[in-house]
């Protein structure tokens, strides 16, 4: 395994299903990478994670910018001593929790089964 991270001569860990040997392997990886099933897995991961990352980073930066430059709006009272800024701040907590939950649900439904199927195929093909 020339440049792979396991270049030291450490023994294979017990219970680790046949860690692939040196460079005869990569062609198989290219085949898998080009397969339709892998394409689906990659798409399911990227089409979910990338836009969502963009969305929450934008939402967070928007919040920072509003705090900086939209004082009047943020100072508006909602109820009692609670203002818009405070509500939006709590909103950041809420969206963080929701996104974490949503992603985990997506991963369990769309990513894990595909990843497991591909892994089983790779392990079976040795």
């Amino acid at each position, binding site marked *: 395994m020339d440049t792979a991270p396991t270049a030291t001569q450490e023994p294979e860990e017990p219970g680790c299903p046949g860690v692939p040997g040196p460079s005869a392997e990569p062609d198989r990886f290219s085949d898998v990478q080009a397969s339709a099933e892998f394409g689906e897995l990659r798409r399911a991961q990227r089409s979910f994670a990338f836009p969502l990352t963009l969305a929450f980073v934008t939402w967070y930066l928007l919040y920072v910018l509003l705090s900086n430059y939209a004082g009047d709006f943020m*100072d508006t009272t909602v109820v009692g001593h609670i203002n818009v800024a405070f509500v939006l701040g709590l909103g950041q907590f809420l969206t963080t929790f929701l996104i974490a939950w949503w992603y985990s649900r997506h991963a369990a439904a769309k990513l894990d089964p595909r990843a497991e199927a591909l892994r089983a195929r790779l392990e079976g093909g040795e």
Partner: protein
Amino acid sequence: MTGDLHTLALGHPLAATAGAGEHRTLIITLFSVFVAATLAITVWAGRQTKDATDFYAGGRSFTGFQNGLAISGDYMSAASFLGIAGAISLFGYDGFLYSIGFLVAWLVALLLVAEPLRNSGRFTMADVLAYRLKQRPVRTAAGTSTIVVSIFYLLAQMVGAGALVALLLGATGEGSRRWIIGLVGLVMVLYVTIGGMKGTTWVQIVKAVLLIAGTLLITVLVLNKFNWNISSLLGEAAKQSGKGEAFLEPGLQYGKDGTSKLNFISLGLALVLGTAGLPHILIRFYTVPTAKAARKSVNWAIGIIGAFYLMTIALGFGAAALVGPKTITASNESGNTAAPLLAEEIGGGAGSTGGAILLAVISAVAFATILAVVAGLTLASSASFAHDLWANVIRRGRTSEKEEILTAKCAAVVIGAVSIALGIFAHRLNAAALVALAFAVAASANLPTILYSLFWKRFTTQGALWSIYGGLISSVTLVIFSPVLSGNPKALFPGMSFDYFPLANPGLVSIPLGFLLGWLGSLLSREQPDAKKYAELEVRSLTGYGAH
């Protein structure tokens, strides 16, 4: 400025609390119990630590929940507990903004980094980069930035630890402060060298439980006092702050002028992008058996850390309402003792038994927090030194596992000694600058390379080197020429002025630069990206095939 958040560095005598000897005895007793218990756990864990996987990754035997607690323990440093509570108590809403950045940042780790890293790496961050890029230069770069980030973070905690411990124990003298820094350093080295990752993880878990329990207790007491009405808590805090409703609105700390607003954006960017590049956080993903467990542990961490930061609202505004900014600043200029002071107040006030007990409990929790975080940092940096720099770069993979672990232990001793020395001699350094710098360096030097190597097929070794070194050098250089080091009375060298860069945090410039250099370096590189290696990395990182 960032200086106001985690400035645990300055040794102001703790006028209001440290006087009574009974507090001191109680604090020392509780803290000694913590140290004794955790050292016992460490020795027990050390007996089970046999190979490199045990030492670096705790045998990958932790559950998602356990690791979620340990991540929380690693992440909620003294800066979070004391710094944010203090910042809220003095700056109201602007202090609360920190909590949000620190939490949202976890989504980057969850969505993009934790699972692929767990699937494709082994012990360190550089493992993932070394997969498809030229191993030796990339490991050298990643190892260097790991150690730089960790040392800055470590130094911040050490400086803070010394000041805080000395403050709360009433030992403000120079001699006792040094002695205490040395003791903290010694205990942290013991954790790491004896217990490895297994011991360190258990220390984090114990500490996280204590911290959450302590914070929850104070929160319940505070909210109970205000009949569980947040609005009246905020109203009283605003009234006592002497700033009225402005205390609840943005801008008290960061709204002074255009520069301080830009500085705030810069800090916000560093916080939200820094977490997923912090080496001591990244190596935690290796302590669980699968990517699914890594996901679960981040979910637990988000829940725990989120709940904790929500409670900092009660802590901070509670301290403002019940203790008042005058008493807080009299004790510590930057508010770092707000949480312990609030504990004393809510327990019945100074001089009462309840007050003394709660103060002692919260202070002991704060010490435990510092100890656990420095242990995590020491482990991350010594692991990277032994695994990346020593085993794979210097010895070119011709080491035995035993030699590598021994090297890591020696590195931990050296790093411990260096941070003790720095903590003693550089105690004038501003801890805030160091923590913010650690986040900024992590976001500029580590995150772009991690993301590019996982997700971009055209990424090359040159791109990685440009990005890591470019991000590292630019962020450190900008801090050198920032107001943190010179040009004002609060700076490290107040007498000099070479503050050519106006922002205290370099993130706004250095983070985009890190990403840009990674992209440019790859496009301009003559080396063809290795498609086969990328296929292997991509397949492994997404499927978990052949994961260690």
